[in-house]
């Protein structure tokens, strides 16, 4: 189909390079002890995320996960364990360093994972990549299914919420939606259990486990030059983080 033809022109790394480069870069993130270097590396990743077209997704993550997490760290080290005194708020240099380092590591780590997986999500190359990384059979099914799970759950939550509003059980405002969470758990739990039974029957009956490993991709999938480039970049980053 048209969309599969379009993919042949894309410049994406080969599966082995994608996996290796991500692994090397992640090690670099966790061995790096220089917040400035981490910050620069993260900015580089933001640029790549922008080029790939998924920067907004990362900003979404920062707003809803990273910022609350950092505030939590500040509270733990700034209030619960005050630096140098027994009461009051005051970040010591050691706590500030630790907070900055952990926050930057989480941010860079998330950016790396998003850069590695998100561009593959809506493409047939996802299965090829996971297969190239050694995933087979049920493990492959589990990995692919887990990547579709968030969209699926988000859609179901939206449906249940809409139905509750339509039945006059909830209002449209955010507070009402939050208060609906306990009432939504039951239908969602039932959905998870029944769909698990139905899907396992569907997958077994249609032999989807076998079919999944046979999803075709365009010939020549993955660019060698892009692969070398990202691998070189990842190794350079690891070397820099070891030396700094």
């Amino acid at each position, binding site marked *: *189909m048209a*969309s*599969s033809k379009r993919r042949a022109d894309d410049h994406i790394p080969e599966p082995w390079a994608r996996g290796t480069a991500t692994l090397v870069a992640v090690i670099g993130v966790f061995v790096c002890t220089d917040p400035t270097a981490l910050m620069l590396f993260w900015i580089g990743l933001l640029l790549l995320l922008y080029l790939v077209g998924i920067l907004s997704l990362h900003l979404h993550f920062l707003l809803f996960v990273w910022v609350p997490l950092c505030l939590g760290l500040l509270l733990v080290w700034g209030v619960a364990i005050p630096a140098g005194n027994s009461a009051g708020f005051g970040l010591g240099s050691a706590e500030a360093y630790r907070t900055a380092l952990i926050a930057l590591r989480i941010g860079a780590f998330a950016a790396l994972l998003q850069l590695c997986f998100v561009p593959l*999500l*809506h*493409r*047939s190359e*996802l299965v090829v990549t996971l297969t190239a990384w050694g995933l087979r059979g049920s493990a492959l*099914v589990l990995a*692919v*299914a887990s*990547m*579709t*799970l968030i*969209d*699926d759950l988000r*859609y*179901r939550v939206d*449906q*249940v919420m*809409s*139905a*509750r*509003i*339509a*039945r*006059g*059980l*909830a*209002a*449209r405002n955010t507070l009402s939606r939050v208060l609906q969470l306990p*009432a939504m758990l*039951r*239908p969602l739990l*039932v*959905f998870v259990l*029944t*769909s698990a*039974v*139905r*899907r396992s*029957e*569907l*997958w*077994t*009956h*249609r*032999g*989807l486990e076998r*079919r*999944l490993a*046979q*999803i*075709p991709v365009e010939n020549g999938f993955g660019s060698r030059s892009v692969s070398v480039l990202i691998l070189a970049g990842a190794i350079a980053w690891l070397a820099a983080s070891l030396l700094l």
Partner: protein
Amino acid sequence: MSESYAPAPILLEGPNFSGRTAHLRGFVGLPPVSGGELTQGLSGGAFVAQDSQNFISGLATTGHLELLLHGLEQCPFREDIERLTVQLRLRECLDRNPFTLSGGEQAMLTVLSAAAMTPRRLALDGVLEQLSDASREVMLDLIGGPLATVCATRLADNRLTHFPGLLERFSLRPPGAVPALRPDTPWPGRTTGKVLTLAGIRFAYRRGQAVLDGIDFRLQPGRVYVLHGANGAGKSTLSKVLCGILRPRSGELLTATGQRVQPWREPAGLFAYHFQNPDLQLFHTRVRDELGLVGEPSDGGTFHLVHGFGLESVLDEHPLDLPYVLRKRVAMAATLAMFRPWTILDEPTLGQDDANCLALAAFLRRAAKAGAGIIVISHSRWFSAQLDAEHILLRGGRLEAVVPTEISAEKRV
């Protein structure tokens, strides 16, 4: 019934609970109900039922990948399927997550996915009921054409009974007394509809892609409206706007006195909305609680609905333990039991046999005569013809009153 492969598709006819679903599941090697052991030696079959979202694999992030996963590349009639995606206006949907498609689009995708498998046996249980007549004809061309050369197909479909097709038919008898809708049920509501004017209602999920593009229409209580439109035309979106689930980008709703109404400020205040898929709108552990019943059935509003919808024997059952036909009825009765001035019923006949459809039509006509405002979304021309309704068509994001000759020409049973 012979189990030999037959190239001609066979339509199973029979009322609800006559065993059509169990037969179809057995035909492709599935146990009568979900969760049992698969029959050995009958792999290579495919079964799709009316709750089509349960037949999306969950292993593909786009519709295109769903088709590839089911073997589109190796399918001998791949070009036919690709042509159908254009004919059915499904092409644009293939880049989206299958779970975000409309009910009709999901139904089409699941049937095409099953066809792409090139199964030896294909069983379609009511899934075509969600499609417009034009889309259903296109699907039947595939089933009776290229698919028939490699695959034996059996269908159970209440709407195809009234569809002049080339299918062979086989009737199943009912196994005994089953709960049915009762045609003599009076409308138990005390509230009556209100005149409402929709003025310039616009809505878009994404900027620049208007789904509703200036809806101007006057709704009069005391009559049934049937909302027509192709799959994905925005019928459900319009219902959500009226019900207050979605807020329109512009436009307003006015009462007869010119007073402005804002449903999104008080959702479900004016309109009660029955969704196409009943499963996610059932929230309680007993049917009784779902309907808001206290005590035993006797005279009274909701109790009329319990009697009319044949639900007396299942009042203490868990709604999700019931078969699809009854789940649909429970969800419908629960919506009607809200007794709002207007009630929107999205595909109320899904899974219901002819007798139940006629009883439902009689009930809705009676409700409208009693002053209730009823809007029905249905792809069944036959059912629409039973409603004495005003037909409105959603086309290009706009609403217009129509008198489709093909609908008015249908004879009442």
